[in-house]
C-alpha cells in the first residue's frame, strides 16, 4: 500500500477497506467503462472527433451540462434549506415531509417526466397559470431544469441532514456566550462544518443530472439545437445501430463529468484539510 503513501494512523483496516473498495470499483465500474472507451477507440481519432464535434453534439452538451449545473445549484440552495428545517424545527407533518424527500428516486424516471409534463404543460395544473405570464416551462430548456431539479433533490437533503443532526448544540452555545449572533454562528460554525456534505450533495445531484434521460425526454420537446439533450443523441445513434458513434458521445460525456467531479472533489478535499475537518 506504499503506492498510496498512506500517512501513519493507529486505526487498522486500511488495507482491507481500500483493497475491497478497489476490487469492487474495478469489477463494477472501471472494467465496464474500459470496455466503453476501448470500443469507441475503434473509430480512430479522426472518426471519433468527427462524431463528437458536430454542432448538434456541442449544442446538446452545452444544454445538458448547463441545465444540470443550474438544477444542482437550485438543489444545493433549497436542499440545504430543507435539511435545515427538517433537522432543526418542528412543525406538523414533519415526519411525512421527511419521508417524501426520497421519492424522486423511487419513482421510475419516465413517470416523473410524465407527471411533471402534466403539471407544466400549457393546460397543466401549474402551466395554465404560467402561460398567461408568458412563462413556458414544458417543451423548453426550463422544463429540462425542472425535471433535473426533481430527480436530484434527495441528494443534497440526505447528505446534509445527517451532518446537521450530528452538530452538537454546545458549540453554538459556546459561540453565543462569546458574543456571536445567529448569522455569525451560521457562517462561522455551522456552515463550514456542513460544507463538505453540501458539496458532496451538489456533486451527486450534478452528476446524476448530466446523464438523466427518462424524465427529461417527456418535458424537453427534443427540438434539435434547442432542447435536445446529449443522452437523446446517444439513443439516436443506437437507433441507427451505430454502437461506435453512441460510445464516442458517451465517452465525451464521461470525460467531461470526470473532470468536473474531480475538480469538485479536489476542492472539497482541499477545503476539508484547510478547515481541519477531515
Amino acid at each position, binding site marked *: 500500500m506504499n503506492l498510496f503513501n498512506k500517512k501513519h494512523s493507529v486505526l487498522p483496516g486500511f488495507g482491507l477497506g481500500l483493497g475491497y473498495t478497489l476490487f469492487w470499483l474495478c469489477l463494477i465500474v472501471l472494467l465496464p467503462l474500459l470496455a466503453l472507451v476501448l470500443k469507441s477507440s475503434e473509430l480512430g481519432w479522426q472518426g471519433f472527433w468527427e462524431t463528437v464535434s*458536430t454542432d448538434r453534439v456541442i449544442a446538446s452538451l452545452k444544454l445538458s451540462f448547463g441545465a444540470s449545473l443550474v438544477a444542482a445549484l437550485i438543489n444545493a440552495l433549497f436542499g440545504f434549506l430543507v435539511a435545515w428545517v427538517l433537522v432543526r424545527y418542528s412543525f406538523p407533518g414533519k415526519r411525512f415531509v421527511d419521508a417524501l424527500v426520497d421519492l424522486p428516486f423511487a419513482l421510475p424516471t419516465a413517470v416523473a417526466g410524465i407527471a411533471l409534463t*402534466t403539471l407544466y*404543460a*400549457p393546460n397543466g395544473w401549474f402551466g395554465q397559470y404560467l402561460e398567461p405570464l408568458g412563462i413556458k416551462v414544458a*417543451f423548453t430548456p426550463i422544463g429540462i431544469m425542472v425535471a433535473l431539479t426533481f430527480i436530484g433533490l434527495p441528494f443534497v437533503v440526505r447528505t446534509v441532514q445527517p451532518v446537521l443532526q450530528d452538530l452538537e448544540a454546545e458549540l453554538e452555545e459556546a459561540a453565543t456566550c462569546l458574543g456571536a449572533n445567529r448569522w455569525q454562528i451560521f457562517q462561522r460554525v455551522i456552515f463550514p462544518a456542513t460544507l463538505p456534505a453540501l458539496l458532496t450533495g451538489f456533486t451527486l445531484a450534478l452528476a446524476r443530472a448530466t446523464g438523466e434521460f427518462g424524465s427529461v425526454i417527456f418535458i424537453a420537446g*427534443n*427540438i434539435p439545437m434547442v432542447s435536445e439533450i446529449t443522452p437523446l443523441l446517444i439513443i*439516436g445513434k443506437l437507433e441507427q*445501430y451505430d454502437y461506435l458513434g453512441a460510445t464516442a458521445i458517451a465517452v465525451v460525456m464521461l470525460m467531461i463529468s470526470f473532470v468536473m467531479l474531480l475538480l469538485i472533489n479536489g476542492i472539497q478535499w482541499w477545503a476539508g484539510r484547510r478547515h481541519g475537518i477531515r
Partner: protein
Amino acid sequence: MKAFISKTVLALSLALSGTAFANTSILNVSYDVMRDFYKDLNPAFQKSYKAQTGQDIAVQQSHGGSSKQAMSVVSGLEADVITMNQAPDIDLLAERGALVPKNWQQRLPDNAAPFTSTMIFLVRKGNPKQIKDWNDLTKQGVAVIIPNPKITGNGRYTYLAAWGQAQKAGGEAKARQYVESLFKNVPVLDAGGRAATTTFMQRNIGDVLVTFENEAEMVAREFGRGSFDVIYPAVSILAESPVSVVDKVVDKKGTRKVAEDYLKFLWSPEGQEIAAQNYLRPRNAQVLAKYSKQFPAIKTFTVEETFGSWKKAMDTHFKDGGVFDQIYAKR
C-alpha cells in the same frame, strides 16, 4: 460470499423461469403497441396448435421499441420469432450475427408482412382548422404533432409518407420543400408514439396528430370516441409490419416447426380476423371485405417503390447528417 450470491441468483432465476418452461415455449420479440393483438392471437394459436398436434405450447412475449428490440436479439435475446414494424429491424439480424438468411422477406407471402397499416390524421373535434389533406399541414398557424423520426418508427413512417406523397405530386425538390415546411410546424418531437399521442390528446398541443390507423383505435379506446375526428388523406404510405423466424435460435432450441407454424397462423383466416379486430388491415381479401367498414379505401405507396429500398430511405433521410438532420441544421 460470491459463491453464495451466484447460487442465490441461479436458484432465483430457476424459480422464476421454472413454471414458464414447463412445456415447449417460444419467445416472440415484438414492438411496443402489439401487445393487445398478440394477447388475442396467442390463445387462438395455442388452441389451434393443440387441436392439430395435441401438444401444449407456451408463447412468451417481449415488447419494446422496434429497433431496440432488434438490437437485443442481435445481442443474444433468444427470440424464436421476431415481429417488427419495419423491415430494417429484421435486416439487421441478417447483417449482424447471421441470425436469419438474407432472403428472409421472401420466405413468407406478402413481403413477410401479415397485415399492414397506414398513416392518417387525428384532428380536434369538428376539424376547426379544416384539415383535409397533406397540404393543409404546412399552412401557417397549424401545429402538427409527430414523434421524433430519428428514434421512433412512427415518426419515420410519417416522415416518409409526407415525403412520398409530395414527391409523387411534384418531384424530389418539392418533397424536400414540403417536409421542411412541415417540420417548421412541429412544436414538439416526442420520443415515442405514445408520448406524441399524450402531447396531442392530454396536453392539448397541436391541431393534427399524424399516426398509424390502428393507433387511432387505441386512442379512441383510451380517450373516448367523441374527442377527436379521424381524417384520411388522399394518399399515404403502406406500413408493413414484417415477421420472421430467427433461424439461429430455433435451430439451437429445436423449435423451428412451432415457430414456423406460429407465423403461418398469422396468415390463417382466424389470425387475419384477429388482426382486423385490432384495426390492422388484413392481407386476406375476404376478411378485409368483411371489415371494410372500418378500413376506408385509401391510396397507398410502399417504401420500396418510392424510396428504392428501406436501406436507401434510412441512409438518405435518417442517418446522422441525413436530410432530416439537414432540415434542423438549417434553422
